[in-house]
């Protein structure tokens, strides 16, 4: 199946597929998908970024594969086929990380494997790739991965800064000499509930700025 479109590759419609999930249609803050991993891997910045990249690669490539096969996938077993494609991609990513980025793969440990259970992937395959051509599906995958990654990075930044006093492992708070004023790291920040509360605050902020996101009563 070719990726040649009648419309240009980066038409306004395709660009919207990329920017939509980052902002107004964000998988985490608007669709509220993929929350579990957002809580688990956001204690430090580095694992959060690698996780965001891994999810982006998996969702983009799976989207392309499913989209290319969409005419041939029997409707009755489509969920199974989607899961097989996702699982295959995740195992490949995991194996490659173990072989070529050993340190990072150890930091992420089980969470790479858990990408399989990330609802964003199933959501995109079922809602988008099954009904669209490979190229838009690929862009849609990238956009959703980026939207997911953006929230992960924001949450990880706040949690690492307030919980461990560092940014990317660099002891920022200590260098600024804040501890001498009696400031202490907030241990709560390291625990998953605070990630949920931060995500909640982001949702709150986003909705207060964009009234169109608020459901009608």
């Amino acid at each position: 199946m070719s990726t040649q479109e009648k419309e240009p590759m980066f038409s306004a419609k395709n660009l919207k597929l990329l920017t939509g999930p980052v902002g107004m249609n964000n998988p985490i803050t608007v669709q509220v998908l993929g929350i579990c991993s957002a809580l688990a891997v956001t204690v430090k910045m580095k694992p959060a970024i690698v996780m965001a990249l891994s999810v982006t690669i998996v969702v983009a490539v799976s989207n392309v594969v499913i989209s290319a096969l969409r005419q041939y996938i029997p409707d009755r077993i489509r969920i199974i086929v989607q899961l097989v494609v996702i699982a295959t991609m995740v195992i490949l990513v995991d194996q490659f990380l173990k072989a070529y980025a050993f340190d990072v793969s150890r930091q992420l440990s089980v969470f790479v494997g858990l990408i399989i259970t990330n609802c964003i992937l199933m959501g995109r395959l079922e809602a988008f790739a099954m009904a669209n051509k490979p190229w838009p599906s690929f862009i849609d995958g990238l956009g959703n991965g980026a939207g997911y990654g953006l929230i992960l990075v924001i949450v990880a930044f706040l949690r690492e800064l307030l919980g461990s006093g560092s940014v990317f492992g660099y002891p920022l708070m200590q260098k600024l000499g804040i501890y001498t004023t009696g400031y202490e790291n907030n241990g709560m920040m390291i625990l998953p509930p605070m990630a949920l509360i931060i995500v909640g605050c982001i949702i709150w902020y986003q909705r207060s700025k964009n009234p169109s996101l608020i459901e009608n009563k």
Partner: protein
Amino acid sequence: MKQFSNRYIFIFSSVMVIAVATLLAMAATMLQPRQLKNLEIDKKKSMLESIGIESTPETTESLYDKYINESFVLSSKGEKVEGVDAFKVVLKDEQKKPLEEQYLPVFKATPDDREKVIIIPVEGKGLWGPVWGYISVKSDMNTIYGATFDHKGETPGLGAEINTTSFERMFIGKKLYEADKFVSIGVIKGGAKEDDQHNVDAISGGTITSKGLEKMIADCIAKYNDYLLKNRN
């Protein structure tokens, strides 16, 4: 949506499964040598860390050959067992065997200060999974020369802090024995005093990991008791 026959569905899923299985098997086989190499380098890197030598994945092999000169396996009675490669002993498997049949690996190293140290691998349980490490002991077979720990999945920021340098540093200079009695190293809450020779500070918020670590050190090193007492100087 087109309707597909059962026959088509069966053929489709069979072909899919076979294709995916082949792909994954190929990827796993091709990447395996690199992955095993990574694990080996990681093990050597940890051993070097326990004698205070930092290495990068590129330099690990040569530094290991330079500093770690001898390795052998002991029985639980402290006698050398011939014909077993200490580096290949998997501690987790050994711990499942009865004590008399366990192999206890020992690595001898000579860091830059010419101190003759032995490195003892340790493995135990943390809160979520295994914790392990390497402890190096000076030639008096009593004073800790250095220690390094790692874990599979302890809570980041809490139990996971056991693999930080600041935690591992505290073990340096602690004593395993009080005269001839094995007392091990305690990991205690509320802070160990400066002159306390047998205790280090626990990690706040990581109580179960700290306790697991303490038990791991006591259990694993106690097995070397005979050897340590015999080889004092």
